[in-house]
């Protein structure tokens, strides 16, 4: 099926240590999936593997005909240099990369789309503000405006609601539901289980190994959550090479 993300025994990690271990499964086009798990469970690693920012240690990811620019990625805010002297408008405009590339200019239609995206996240009037002066919530709204412009068929959100107030979170959730309504695939790494239960039909519970994957209600059971919490965070420096058979 086109637009389906398929994982075949995927292992992604650092220095041969797996951060995501033996993940197999598929995400249908148009799915709204929460990725849940303790810190160090491999949520960010999984997203970086999907967009190709980290190489796979084993297995393969079939992107179902999605090109790199069909997948939009929202990194954790902590990975952005907020002291960099760039304005909100220029930052959001980078969402048009698929059209402009490295050299292309932004035409009248592009400028109109930037205006609309800023309006959609409630940042009209912030165009010339330096990103260093934004609050946490405004920063996240700006990054969602950039996602809007990317107009991607799959959207990966790494902890989009960290340290933002409930009004901003609910505005951004409206955008996520709008994307879901437009049949875009949305993956979000989240910590707030109430929010996951309320808005996300499907959940992947990850603790390096996948613990459970499916309907949110059947995944987020006390037993599964306990199992996820028992994951050992430290890598074992003496670990032997993984003995599991390599999938074809």
């Amino acid at each position, binding site marked *: 099926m086109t637009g389906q993300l398929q994982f075949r025994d995927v292992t992604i990690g650092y220095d041969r240590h797996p951060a995501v271990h033996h993940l197999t499964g598929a995400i249908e086009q148009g799915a709204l999936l929460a990725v849940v798990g303790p810190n160090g469970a491999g949520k960010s690693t999984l997203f970086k593997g999907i967009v190709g920012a980290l190489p796979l240690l084993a297995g393969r990811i079939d992107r179902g005909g999605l090109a790199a620019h069909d997948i939009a*990625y929202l990194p954790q805010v902590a990975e952005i*240099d907020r002291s960099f002297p760039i304005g909100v408008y220029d930052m959001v405009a980078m969402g048009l990369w698929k059209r402009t590339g490295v050299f292309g200019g932004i035409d009248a239609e592009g400028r109109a789309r930037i205006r609309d995206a800023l309006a959609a996240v409630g940042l009209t009037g912030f165009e010339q503000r330096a990103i260093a*002066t934004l609050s946490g919530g405004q920063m996240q709204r700006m990054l969602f405006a950039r996602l809007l412009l990317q107009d991607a068929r799959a959207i990966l959100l790494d902890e989009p609601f960290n340290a933002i107030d409930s009004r901003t979170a609910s505005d951004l959730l409206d955008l996520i539901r709008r994307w879901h309504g437009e049949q875009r695939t949305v993956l979000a790494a989240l910590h707030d289980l109430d929010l996951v239960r309320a808005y996300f039909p499907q959940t992947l519970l990850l603790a390096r190994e996948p613990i459970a994957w499916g309907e949110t209600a059947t995944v987020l059971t006390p037993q599964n959550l306990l199992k996820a919490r028992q994951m050992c965070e430290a890598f074992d420096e003496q670990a032997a090479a993984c003995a599991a058979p390599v999938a074809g």
Partner: protein
Amino acid sequence: MHGHAHDIASLWTEDALRQSLAAVVILAISAAPVGVFLMLRRMSLVGDAMSHAILPGAAIGFLVSGLNVFAMTLGGLIAGLVIAVLAGLIARATEIKEDASLAVFLLVSLALGVVIVTVKGMDAEHLMEFLFGETAAAISADKLMLIAGNATVSTLVLALIYRPLVLDCVDPNFLRSVSSAGAAAHLAFLALLVINLISGFHALGTLLGVGIMIVPAAIARFWSRDITVMIAIAVGSGALAGIAGVLASHEAGIPAGAGVILAAGILYFGSVILGPVGGLVWKLFPGRHLEA
């Protein structure tokens, strides 16, 4: 010692002075924007260290053909590019950070440069010129052409890699998700660093040449929160310091590098005090708070 009126008149009659003034202005246009990116990537000290890397290459050029502009340039260029690319690749491929990786290369290569210069033997006057720039601002036509050529390449390439370079600084993960241009832009940037250091080295000496890159960028930080404006301010203040420094060097017979960097230093401390972005005066006397 020349009189002031004589100096203004001599602008139009002395080739060496005119060439020196042209060289420092061109150098500011070319090197100051590179310095802004160095600062924003927190690589200011890398630029400093990098300038030492050019020394052994220039010294080998000197060894082969004496004080010849093109031989020393070619030597410096090759040494600088080899070290920049090797250190950059090692940093990207291993756990070591780029600054530490460069520091190792540069210390080794500085030591090598000292050995070569000593073995060949260089008299004190030429060594002063080598390290601190031409005394009394006398940049030759050969050097001016070289600086102008480097500036043309540098400005064009910087314009080409500008967008990925900015994104690689502010949001590298996003850049990696939309394009693979980040690594190429970074390596091209290191090459620009080298050719601008070579220009700076010819105009202002090996030790102080890097200053025309670093100091104007630091000045610009106090005047704007927008990278485009910062680049314009860095170029302007670099050119201003260059002109003032060359005239002072001509007047007082001090090395050009020292004159230019001292002038830039005066602008820097003025900016620390008066600059609207984090300057001391604005911190101490912020004025009444606003309505909204």
